């Protein structure tokens, strides 16, 4: 196994990690912690990209499409 398929297990683990990160972000007790976790999410999403992840193209994509409002994550 020498190509992108070998990264599928990593991709699945990262997706689980991301779900946990989102929970932490949504429950963050301060804006500072919430923002730091958003930055962490951006870097985590880059790791998913290296795995050939195609379900989303950028971290906030799903949210933006739901309500079409400016999303502070992006700044």
């Amino acid at each position, binding site marked *: 196994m020498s*190509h992108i398929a070998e990264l599928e297990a990593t991709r699945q683990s990262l997706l689980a990690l991301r779900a946990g990160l989102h929970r932490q972000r949504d429950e963050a007790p301060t804006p500072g912690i919430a923002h730091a976790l958003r930055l962490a999410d951006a*870097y985590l999403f880059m790791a998913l990209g290296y795995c050939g992840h*195609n379900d989303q*193209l950028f971290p906030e994509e799903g949210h*933006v*499409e739901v309500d079409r409002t*400016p*999303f502070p994550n992006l700044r």
Partner: protein
Amino acid sequence: MADDRYWNRPTQTAPREVLDAVHLERIQHLIAWSYRNSPLYRRLYDAADIKPEDIKTWDDFHHRLPFTDKPDFLADQDRQPSGYGGLALPADAIQMHFHTTGTTGRFLNEGFTQYEMQKSATQYCYSYWDHGIRPGDSVYFCFNFGMWIGLWSIYWGARNMNLRILAGGGAASTERVRQILALRPKIVVGTPTYLLHLVEVARQEGLDLRDAGVQMVMGGGEPGFSVPITRESLMKGWGATQVLDAYGIGETMHVAQGCLEWGGGVHTIEDVVHSFTADPETGAPMLESGQIGENIVTSYTHFSQPFIKYRTHDLVQRDLHPDHGCGWTWAHLPGVVLGRSDFMVTIRGTNVYPTAVENLVGGVAGLTNHYELHITRPGAFDEMLVKVEAAALNADHGALSTQLDEHFRRNLGVRLGVEILKPDTLPRYELKTKRIFDARRDGK
């Protein structure tokens, strides 16, 4: 893992068919996103009677999906209150604002979110890593940072790799030479002509940049880093063992780069961009390796302002199965950019289209459309002298010269030489007027 020469081996060495499958999936996703969220794409695809679900195969992509081009985005830019063409996210999502160099006569605004800056920065890591550059190494920038994205992208790449950043902005060339000798960076970034210019400046100061211990010189903005004689001159002048070329398209924010073995060009970074070659006249795809045609790109780093099947007007030769020993399977562009669909001059790192200059000459009252453009390379840089006839015999040449100079600087982002002539000074032609005199082609 840390001793792997590849930054991301599974994708960087994947077979072509695997890469193509990932590309098609990403492109389909991007088309759907853009159709839903960008008024420009909605208009373009509706006009072509295309829905995202129609693009099922490469044949659909190549033959049914419309191209996009800079005028599409400029026209939409004029239409949108945000000032950005093709936007697919709210404008307040934009973290960094850039614009193109304006070489076609107008600036195209480019907006990037925080994630897009971070994501696009990753593409430098593939080449840095391949050349043995590691976090903690230092990089010196010979630039003043402005609204052109090119240098910023290298800066963000250095940040992403956690390199130590040494900013040489605002310093004179002599000062930069001394800073480089004192700080001993591993990488120095500049245009090839400027880096060669620094070698000369150092010599005039009685200094030798080979004493700085620089391992790599790199940059972009103009040809040279992939021209063998220029590479040799750079390595000789700097004592560097590595020259890294970077060919990017600012609005799409992708940058093709050289590998350690250097096969005479650059690899497209296929984790962040899809590209193919098309006949610049007919738009027909040219899918065999070795054919020379226009580089057409679809970016995966820019979602707030998507660029899909975008015409770069750069002529390239694509090798889909590179075999020069690096092991990268990503497409290779030997010779990098082989030409433009229109003629281009590079003045102090800024690309200037003579056509754009011609279009601007008429923008100053009191001048005529009798003009000539004289292109020379007296030293390390291209220079352009614009000779224009005044309309009136008693015109104030000094005032007209100042106005035209400022007009060029404002619209092109670079200063040109200006000479105002009396009426009827220039020759008149019965047929096609010869207005561009390129002394560089004659070796002068």
